[in-house]
């Protein structure tokens, strides 16, 4: 699939270039990218509302699309009438619509407003109804373009649960979103678009990290990451089942970076050694819940760095971030680092985690301003942490001290 030029005069503008991928039945793919990277254009081409200048799209089955909030809704008509109209547009017969109407209304939870003109609906009601119509009509391909972000979390969860059930029945889902958490939780694969070209296609965790690097890292670091991931994928054929770390989901999380290539450009700081230690200073892998552990790593400086911050992230095997923090949050960044100096960063953490295997990642970055930073080096999933079973059985990620009391009423 290729792009299309903008006919509004001036130089041709390729909204998409050399984008090519498949989505199988029952698979969901998340499309990430900055604003203007071509995501919406790509979706329109998939749906057939836009024609690609070169290339082709092959889709099999009925397409349900949520491309824009309220598209296809006539404001003066009631919700019920709009449901009928949209279902007819999707190609359903009157009988099929009648059969599905109850289900759609139950899902949308609009209540009595369903018989009111749609122009009085709030945006949340719009998206509930729109999603209900598109999804309950059992499309073979479901395409969603950032429209769900308008709904509240409860609704979003309901939608994603429904999408899971659709997937089990063989529906393919194509999702565009800015929420990387959504992509990691609900998508099987992810695609990263940047300025119209495919920058990555693969397992969600890798692509999400690449996306974060694209957003927050400087260009050199990002290019190094791209090169390294290519080398890594040729070196190791088995895809990593482990997720890449995030320092914090609101701050810039780390990108998937293996050992930095010693020949790759100027590296201004390097993490030279690391260890996870217990309270006696011995290196250990197994810990009991609640035990104190110290993550200690050494950074060698090769350049002047005004303000250096260090971050750590602990992730579960599935890639869920259990905990992340940074020296920046504690106001304990290292100031005025010079060439040739080396520093130790120590994070003393009380491991109140449930039993399981966790991966620890850590990184150093240069702080550039409020909320902005550039990575200097990072180590991903380099330390394995195994937390043993506590005395009482618990489940989940966080080990919260609980005391139970019971009273019997008369």
């Amino acid at each position: 699939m290729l792009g299309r030029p903008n006919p509004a005069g001036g130089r041709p503008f390729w909204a998409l270039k050399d984008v090519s991928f498949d989505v199988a039945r029952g698979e969901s793919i998340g499309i990430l990218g900055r604003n203007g990277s071509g995501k919406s254009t790509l979706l329109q081409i998939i749906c057939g509302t836009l024609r690609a200048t070169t290339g082709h799209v092959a889709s099999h089955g009925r397409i349900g699309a949520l491309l824009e909030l309220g598209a296809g809704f006539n404001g003066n008509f009631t919700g019920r009438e709009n449901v009928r109209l949209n279902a007819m547009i999707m190609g359903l017969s009157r009988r099929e619509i009648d059969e599905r109407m109850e289900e759609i209304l139950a899902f949308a939870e609009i209540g009595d407003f369903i018989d009111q003109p749609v122009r009085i609906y709030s945006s949340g009601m719009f998206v509930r109804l729109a999603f209900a119509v598109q999804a309950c009509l059992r499309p073979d391909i479901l395409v969603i373009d950032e429209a769900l972000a308008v709904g509240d979390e409860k609704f979003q969860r309901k939608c994603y649960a429904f999408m899971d059930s659709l997937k089990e029945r063989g529906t393919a889902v194509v999702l565009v979103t800015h929420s990387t958490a959504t992509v990691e939780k609900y998508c099987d694969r992810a695609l990263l678009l940047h300025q119209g070209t495919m920058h990555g296609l693969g397992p969600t965790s890798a692509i999400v990290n690449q996306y974060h690097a694209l957003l927050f890292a400087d260009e050199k670091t990002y290019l190094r990451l791209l090169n390294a991931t290519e080398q890594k994928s040729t070196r190791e054929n088995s895809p990593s089942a482990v997720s890449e770390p995030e320092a914090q989901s609101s701050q810039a999380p780390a990108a998937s970076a293996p050992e930095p290539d010693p020949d790759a450009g100027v590296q201004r700081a390097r993490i030279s050694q690391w260890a996870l230690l217990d309270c006696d200073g011995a290196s250990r892998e197994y810990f009991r819940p609640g035990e104190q552990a110290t993550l200690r790593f050494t950074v060698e400086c090769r350049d002047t760095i005004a303000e250096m911050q260090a971050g750590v992230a602990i992730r579960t095997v599935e890639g869920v971030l259990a905990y992340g923090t940074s020296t920046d949050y504690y106001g304990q960044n290292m100031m005025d680092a010079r060439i040739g100096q080396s520093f130790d960063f120590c994070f003393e953490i009380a491991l109140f985690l449930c039993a399981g295997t966790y991966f620890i990642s850590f990184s150093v970055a240069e702080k550039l301003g409020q909320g902005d930073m550039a990575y200097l080096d990072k180590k991903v999933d380099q330390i394995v942490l195994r937390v043993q079973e506590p005395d009482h059985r618990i489940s989940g990620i966080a080990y919260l001290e609980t005391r139970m009391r019971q009273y019997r009423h008369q």
Partner: protein
Amino acid sequence: MLHQLLSWPRKNCQLVAAMTAREIASRFRGSLAGLAWLLLTPLLVLAIYHFVFTEIFKARWATPASDDAPFALSLYTGLIVFTAFSEPVSRAPGLLAAHVNLVKRVVFPLEALPMVAACSGGVIACLQAAPIIAGLVIWKQSLPWTAILFPLMLLPVILLAFGVTAIISAFGAYLTDLSHLTGILLTAAMFLSPVFYPVEAVPEAVRWLYQLNPLTASIENARAVLLDGVPPPFLGYLRGLATGLLAVVIGAAVFVWLKPGFADVL
């Protein structure tokens, strides 16, 4: 391509029917007089034209045959048949822009849009025939059996309206000038059709021009079945129908040809 053309109505007739009903209802939903405007508008226009033509121009209907039908009724009939054509066509240039969501954001059979416009024009014309029925009952105390053929007389007009609307709306997506051109085209069409006068009033020398106009036959036929109680000439009617079908085919072809680019230019 032909297969697509023939299978299209079956797949989409429910959609077109539903959208036509919505469109007609939506015109008047929310307004105070509601559907009454449907009748009020042509009646008011008729009153104005009647006044101007008979009192100021001192015109006569000018043929012995239709002398019995009141001037107003003949004029009105011509008017509503012509409106069945002019109303969709006048909306054609901006039709796709008015439904830009359906072009870009929804998987939608866009050919339905000119079809809905033409059908709603036809349905409205049928509704607007009600005052004629009332007028006939008052004037003649009887209704000619041919009055029931009126919708059939409208059919060539609807087909023609679809064809022209499809072409103009397709080009109109690309060229905004078309809206100006269409206005002129319709005004010319109005005066070159026997709306205000019967076709017999036209001098022999230029009558061929009027015969070329497909609307002429339909207007005259409508007058014949409603006011004169005479069924239309069979061959003439077939010819009108054939012209309409030709317009449908050409219009559909042009629309489908230009369709892929709509999302780009709107």
